[in-house]
């Protein structure tokens, strides 16, 4: 696979890349790895060969720490056409069409140079998709940063958002969804994960296997320069300092205009049947593209170094071979089709040239000719006097790269120990906070993580190509497929806060929520792509987190019947003193057979019945409510029953297919109360509910236990809806009715908050807020958190700031 450079393995010995140390270490190779290279070659590697190994054996290209874990993932699926190991996963959707999709990270480059880091992240994942013959139809970006009030965070957010937009807008691929999350653990190491989705006619599907000795190795696209040189080794440092100018040259520079030409030229080459194989150049550049395609084909290559177009004179051979200059592709072409291939590239104003030949001998051989004037003759044979600069078996660089069995150890202290006497306080019930539930709800809606993302996604073109049925901002994105009744539904989700308590649960919940967000539109989830953002795998505790998360990912995918079709692993996400929260980012694509049956999350009409399907479980740890107000030290995250989750999702899909559902939302971030408020805000109408609060109003209103859906149903459909739920073995609870301009939630049961008495009300305790106030808090939360807007700018009546005393703690401080 190809990937943006970021997570190359550090020196196992921990030696910093400085001149005094041996060459292999300064390139990020350990002594153990040097020995392994000796065995593979049966001799001493030269400097160029060492450089090629250093990038190909980087964590990012070789998966040397994670491969043993990834082998345990479920990858089989009835409709899977291409899976792990290909440039992107591909799943058949009928009508002779297939969807190609993949998520990838560009974390470290974005921390060094946010605009270019994010932009080239988009470019790289798009190339993975169109290299397989698929036209990119959508991008989703999952972003994670530290404290939004911190100046550096604001600098990073601004640069990354501009970078994603600057690239995606120009190439004409809509950015239809994603995430923007703030948490202190990302302060020194932001996460930029980008997912791309493409549509391909199954006949056009192209793989990156260099078959046919004698075929030409063709390089087209931008010339090769010094940008991204040594990115793998330089950006490999295990401890990632804050802004480090010396690393900036290691960040690639993107040219979306060149990428747009590359898309059109590549799809034209494939449509005309002119290529045997295509692979894009990402991490490790030409070294990766040549060795991986040759390895897949069981072949080798003669690479003519002199034939590679350069941006500048005087580049060293190793610079040319490992440069990560963007917007380049390698194609394997039968000699007879070369003229046609050249014509297509030249029509798109793209430089193109033959840089080598496929050979039966399975070695990657790098050659230079006399006076660097060309190493191969027209028949692809080395010219007299040609010098061999490197010779490495392709598989030694790719499929047979070194693998480490890392040590795994659970951290000694998984959770904060209970403070003395803390257990005595029922601290997850509202009254002890002295807070009106309405104030908590308003504060949550206005918090940096739950408020509207409009200020960000309006900087992205989300409707180009005229397929966007549901764009960013309201749950999963829906993209119609022209010429059919079908639509693709896509989402990304990652639950890091729960993962910090329990990485298995965090990963399983991420899969469950992503799949649920697809299912509540009525679509059937097709498959999973994942981006595993973790810390230094040489730390047993960090590797344990990764191992547990992969286990959770696997268990959840098996329970929900979802194949994992690809993704990437980003390790060493650590800044001095802090590793990120384990963050498994899950991307899921689903299929709606008839887009007309799609259901949205906004209230549709007054007088409809609101039901909750599933049960609310205790546990506030890892919730947004905890971020706002804290929880009892002994409290844990809510539990997850994967069988129940599967039942809830198949039920809601069937209910939607039977036309029983008007609107549907899943209580997740901020719990039931926030979910209802969103449905009300988006539907521009209120609702009156009665919620049993059991022992804890906080859990009932703001708990984030999974396997629940909130559904708006026309009264005459309620009996059929409830009957269907019973058939699926699911409890339903009629909560109330839609309508009016206020959101009213009566708290029934023994856990009433007592706040009513404080308000001097005689009736049962209740939450009662105008929807307009909730919308105001929701719309202004993000720009205020980022300092793009201040309370006085909008003549705010202090609505958002109610309950801000508690809110000022944690990452969601209300400004």
């Amino acid at each position, binding site marked *: 696979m190809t990937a943006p450079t970021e997570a190359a393995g550090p020196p196992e010995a921990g030696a910093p890349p400085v001149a005094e140390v041996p060459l292999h270490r300064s390139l990020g190779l350990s002594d153990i790895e040097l020995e392994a290279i000796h065995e593979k070659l049966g001799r001493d590697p030269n400097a160029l060969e060492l450089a090629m190994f250093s990038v190909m054996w980087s964590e990012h290209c070789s998966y040397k720490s994670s491969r043993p874990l990834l082998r345990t993932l479920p990858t089989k699926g009835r409709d899977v056409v291409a899976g792990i190991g290909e440039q992107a996963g591909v799943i058949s959707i009928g009508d002779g069409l297939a969807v190609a999709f993949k998520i990838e990270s560009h974390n470290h480059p974005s921390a060094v140079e946010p605009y270019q880091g994010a932009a080239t992240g988009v470019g790289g994942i798009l190339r993975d998709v169109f290299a397989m013959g698929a036209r990119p139809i959508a991008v989703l970006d999952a972003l994670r940063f530290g404290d939004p009030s911190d100046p550096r965070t604001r600098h990073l957010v601004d640069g990354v958002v501009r970078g994603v937009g600057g690239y995606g807008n120009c190439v004409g691929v809509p950015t239809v969804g994603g995430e923007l999350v703030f948490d202190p653990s990302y302060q020194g190491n932001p996460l930029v994960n980008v997912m791309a989705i493409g549509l391909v006619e199954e006949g056009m599907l192209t793989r990156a296997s260099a078959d046919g000795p004698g075929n030409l190795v063709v390089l087209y696209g931008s010339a090769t320069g010094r940008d991204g040189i040594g990115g793998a080794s330089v950006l490999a440092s295990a401890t990632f300092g804050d802004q480090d100018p010396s690393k900036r040259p290691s960040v690639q520079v993107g040219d979306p205009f060149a990428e747009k030409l590359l898309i059109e030229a590549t799809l034209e080459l494939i449509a005309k049947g002119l290529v045997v194989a295509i692979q894009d150049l990402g991490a490790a550049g030409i070294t990766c593209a040549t060795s991986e395609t040759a390895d897949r084909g069981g072949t080798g290559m003669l690479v003519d170094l002199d034939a590679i177009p350069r941006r500048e004179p005087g580049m060293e051979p190793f610079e040319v071979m490992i440069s990560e200059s963007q917007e380049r592709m390698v194609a394997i072409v039968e000699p007879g089709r070369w003229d046609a291939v050249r014509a297509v590239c030249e029509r798109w104003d793209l430089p193109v040239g033959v840089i080598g030949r496929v050979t039966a001998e399975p070695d990657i051989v790098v050659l230079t000719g006399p006076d660097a004037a060309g190493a191969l003759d027209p028949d692809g044979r080395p010219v007299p006097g040609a010098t061999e600069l490197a010779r490495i078996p392709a598989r030694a660089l790719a499929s047979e790269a070194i693998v480490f069995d890392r040590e795994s150890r659970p951290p000694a202290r998984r959770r904060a120990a209970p403070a003395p006497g803390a257990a005595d306080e029922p601290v997850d019930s509202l009254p002890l906070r002295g807070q009106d539930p309405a104030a908590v709800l308003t504060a949550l809606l206005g918090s940096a993580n739950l408020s509207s993302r409009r200020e960000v996604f309006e900087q992205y073109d989300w409707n180009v190509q005229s397929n966007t*049925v549901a764009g960013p901002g309201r749950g999963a994105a829906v993209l119609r497929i*022209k010429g059919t009744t079908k639509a693709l539904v896509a989402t990304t989700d990652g639950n890091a806060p729960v993962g910090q308590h329990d990485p298995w649960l965090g990963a399983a919940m991420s899969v469950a929520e992503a799949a649920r967000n697809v299912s509540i539109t009525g679509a059937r989830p097709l498959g999973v792509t994942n981006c595993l953002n973790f810390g230094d795998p040489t730390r047993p505790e960090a590797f344990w987190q990764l191992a547990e998360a992969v286990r959770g990912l696997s268990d959840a995918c098996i329970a929900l019947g979802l194949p994992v079709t690809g993704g990437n692993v980003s390790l060493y996400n650590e800044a001095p003193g802090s590793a990120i929260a384990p963050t498994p980012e899950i991307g899921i694509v689903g299929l709606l057979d008839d887009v007309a049956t799609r259901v949205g999350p906004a209230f549709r009409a007054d007088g409809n019945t609101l039901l909750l399907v599933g049960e609310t479980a205790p546990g506030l740890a890892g919730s947004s409510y905890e971020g706002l107000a804290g929880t009892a030290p002994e409290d844990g995250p809510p539990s997850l029953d994967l069988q129940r989750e599967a039942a809830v999702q198949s039920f809601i899909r069937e209910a939607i297919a039977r036309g029983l559902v008007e609107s549907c939302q899943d209580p997740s971030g901020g719990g039931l109360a926030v979910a209802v408020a969103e449905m009300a805000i988006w539907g521009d109408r209120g609702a009156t509910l009665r919620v049993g609060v059991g022992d804890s109003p906080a859990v009932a209103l703001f708990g984030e236990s999974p396997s629940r859906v909130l559904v708006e149903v026309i009264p005459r459909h309620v009996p059929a809806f409830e009957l269907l739920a019973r058939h699926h073995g699911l409890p339903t609870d009629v909560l109330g009715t839609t309508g009016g301009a206020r959101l009213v939630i009566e708290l029934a049961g023994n856990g009433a908050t007592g706040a009513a008495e404080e308000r001097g009300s005689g009736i049962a305790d209740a939450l009662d807020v105008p929807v307009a106030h909730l919308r105001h808090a929701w719309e202004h939360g993000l720009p205020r958190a980022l300092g793009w807007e201040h309370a006085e700018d909008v003549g705010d009546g202090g609505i958002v700031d109610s309950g801000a005393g508690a809110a000022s703690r944690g990452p969601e401080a209300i400004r």
Partner: protein
Amino acid sequence: MTPRVGIVLFPGSNRDIDAVNALTVAGAEPVMLWHADTDLSDVSAVLLPGGFAYGDYLRAGVIAQFSPVMRAVGEFAARGGPVLGICNGFQVLAEAGLVPGALLRNRGLRFVCREIALLPERLDSPFTREIGTQRPLRMPVAHGEGCYFADDATLDALERDGQVLWRYAAADGRVAAPEDAANPNGSLRGIAGVANAAGNVAGLMPHPEAAVEDLIGSADGLGIIRSLVVSAQEYATTGAVTGTRALAGVAG
């Protein structure tokens, strides 16, 4: 017969997919024109789609104006043929001097993609004749350089001569002033689109071609695309288009 409408494809155009979809929905036959083409005899109207022609490096549309096809488009326009530029296409027409005014960076200095309300100024032009009733039309904008600018004398003349075809509408249906939130880019006098003096060449920043079906959010843009198709039809059969003036010679 179905009128053939040319879609000019510059390197970097990316709303060509939307244009093809819209023209098809509107009952025309889309014909792709390459930036190197010089012969437009085959089409009876030209649509310049959105995107980032030649990467929009230097300034939006500034390089595209020198491409071979733009000379042909200029001649086609001089013969009275209907030409519509959308978003980047509008920027190219303005840079080429085929429509008056200039498009500056958005007031907020950020790319903006959102649904806006577009108010047709008149319903008798070759590009608005099929809209029907005078009402705000919902359609998306998606641009970084869409702030319409011209000096006051020019703006007065444009208004006097009926060359202002569309303005951004505020929530209350009135024209959105530059500082109004409903004006996405700060365009002077809320101008979203204008025509040349002859009336047969027009450009606008919003995307009517991306609002031709309720499924993708709105069908309010269809009237503008239909107008182009009807004008193409008319030009194909009569060699002229209703609502255009005898050519003043100079475009704009």
